[in-house]
């Protein structure tokens, strides 16, 4: 008895001194998506269901005296592939002192001012998740990285060092109809090896400039979506998926103007492995830019518009070396997006609509969604991913047969 009393006494003394903040949160989620076009792929995962999963996420955050760690782990059952798995979404350590912050570990990083359009955000993304109606946060994948922030009045800096390559997650051909220039050909993937020389570097310098949040960016690393190189251009037996080297230099600004929020961003994509533009397997250098405008038109209704362009440098060499029969992309690819959001019932009911439309590719992608918060803890969403286009070879046009309806229900704690 006396022993326990002294232990409690010590605990009472120690706990306030450490002042450790411990928070455990998470959710349980059901998430299902079914193709509604009636089209089916062969193979066990080629049926109507693009997604069928139950998921538990645990988030543990501990911090004291400027130091801390954060863990976000998912445990899930994929009912389409009949597998059960875990996914370490984020796991990092934090330290902050004076004008310096340090974060080491697997972390999600989001840069730039585009809404679902990315220029200077070269961090990995999961398009398979996005196209099958998983919640927005699953569009981003963590990077195993070290991040250093330096803060000063004149300018602040964020440096990200990524030694371990992580590619984008593209829709798998077992579940999605996708354009394949080499149908039926066997393929291997060559990812950049975990070597010091392959370490990716990303730098962001930012400050406030006459009321605008201004930033400049520089990146050296790799394209996150693979390029394809056949062993023989005429009758290939094998196709190699590889990730060409890439450098990006860009800038962005966002602020209040014209009665709303104005965003602009641009970036130069320097195709380091194909500066001449004559290698048909590697995307040529290009300039990407966007302008966006967001405004509250009436109470609880917000509209956002974006115009995005991709301008291909060295278009001549691109056309000259494009293999016969391959679809050619335009010199300037343009994309318009619209986001409409209306809240009802004390913001518990949200109707939203997002549309991509490309006047140059003549393709589109619409995402209507209804989301309702039943209680503070439980919400549900029903939505659709509708793709289409004139051609089966454009970005959204190739997904035409994958129109799907999705349902998400989540209990958060």
């Amino acid at each position: 008895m006396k022993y326990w009393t002294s232990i409690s006494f010590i605990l009472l003394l120690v706990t306030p001194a450490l002042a450790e903040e411990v928070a455990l949160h998470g959710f349980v989620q059901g998430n299902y998506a079914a193709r509604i076009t009636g089209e089916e792929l062969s193979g066990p995962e080629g049926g109507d269901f693009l997604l069928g999963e139950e998921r538990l996420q645990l988030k543990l955050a501990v911090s004291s005296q400027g130091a801390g760690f954060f863990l976000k782990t998912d445990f899930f059952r994929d009912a389409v592939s009949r597998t059960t798995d875990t996914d370490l979404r984020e796991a990092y350590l934090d330290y902050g002192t004076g004008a310096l912050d340090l974060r080491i570990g697997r972390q999600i990083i989001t840069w730039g001012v585009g809404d679902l359009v990315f220029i200077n955000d070269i961090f990995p993304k999961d398009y398979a998740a996005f196209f099958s109606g998983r919640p927005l946060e699953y569009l981003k994948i963590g990077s195993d990285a070290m991040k250093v922030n330096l803060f000063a009045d004149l300018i602040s800096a964020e440096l990200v060092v990524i030694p371990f390559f992580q590619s984008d997650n593209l829709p798998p051909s077992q579940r999605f109809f996708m354009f394949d220039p080499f149908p039926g050909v066997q393929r291997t993937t060559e990812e950049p090896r975990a070597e010091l020389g392959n370490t990716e570097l990303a730098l962001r310098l930012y400050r406030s400039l006459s009321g605008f949040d201004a930033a400049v960016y520089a990146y050296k690393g790799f394209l996150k979506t693979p390029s394809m190189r056949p062993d023989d251009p005429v009758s290939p037996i094998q196709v190699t998926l590889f990730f060409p080297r890439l450098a990006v230099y860009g800038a962005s600004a966002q602020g209040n103007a014209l009665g709303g929020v104005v965003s602009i961003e641009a970036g130069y994509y320097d195709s380091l492995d194909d500066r001449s533009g004559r290698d048909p397997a590697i995307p040529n250098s290009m300039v990407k830019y966007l302008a966006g405008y967001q405004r509250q038109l009436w109470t609880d209704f917000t509209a956002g518009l974006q115009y995005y362009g991709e301008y291909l440098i060295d278009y001549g060499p691109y056309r000259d070396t494009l293999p016969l029969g391959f679809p050619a992309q335009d010199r300037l690819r343009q994309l318009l997006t619209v986001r409409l959001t209306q809240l009802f019932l004390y913001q518990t009911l949200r109707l939203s609509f997002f549309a991509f439309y490309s006047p140059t590719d003549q393709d589109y992608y619409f995402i209507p969604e209804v989301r309702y918060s039943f209680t503070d803890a439980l919400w549900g969403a029903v939505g659709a991913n509708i793709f289409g286009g004139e051609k089966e070879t454009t970005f959204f046009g190739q997904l035409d047969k994958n129109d799907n309806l999705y349902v998400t229900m989540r209990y958060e704690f």
Partner: protein
Amino acid sequence: MRSITKYRFGIMPTLLVAVLSPVPLLAADGAEIIKKSQAAFYEAGQDMKARVKMTLMAREGQQRLRDLTMLRKNYPASEQKYFMYFHSPADVAGMTFMIYKYPNRDDDRWLFIPAINLVNRIAAQDSRSSFVGSDFTYEDVSGRDLTADAHALLREEPFNDRKVYVVESKPIGPAEYTRKLSWIDQASFLPLKEEYYDVQESLYKIFTAEEIKDVQGFATIMKRTMSNVKTGHKTEVVFERIQYNVGLGDDLFSERYLRRPPEKWIK
């Protein structure tokens, strides 16, 4: 010589009258009362830290909670900066929200979404929008521009054993109310009650201050309610652990702390 005499007997009596006038006559200006009321309500101290618990109650009895830490700092020329950290509900836990508030122009608003580590600007044109789904608007939380309404003192009367000014405010531009009546305590200048009338001249929203306490010499509304008499929905807000002049630094209101809220301030 003549001109000096003129000064003596012409101007001086006017000045004397002005100086000796009793206070109520000076305060008779509705705008002046509202200005003092806003100062007492939204600008007390150099800065402020509070834990705010909002309970949203539907007519059917369902309740939703919003638990946040609010930090506020005053700047010259009536500018203010707000930093809010959400503790609950779970789907917004860890989110931070920052407002730079300017008189007579749109606020700057930023929202940090931890799930994707994104800091984004939020369009802020409609300050009459609901704050986090409650019956309070953004303006109810951080104050409305003084010049957005025409204010008139209607009368003085007793209210719950206190002497109050009753001020009528009519929006100059478009707003969802056409008329607001405020019962303002003559001692503390805090609003004890407000009534909002719509286009049909019918009462639809009532604000009441249920509990006022002296905190470090500042009269502070510790508990307030906004009721929508048409929908039966109401929101009760309780300020807990409120402190003034805690010494918030300017650097707190920055992207750095939006992304990594300082544990010292948000507890």
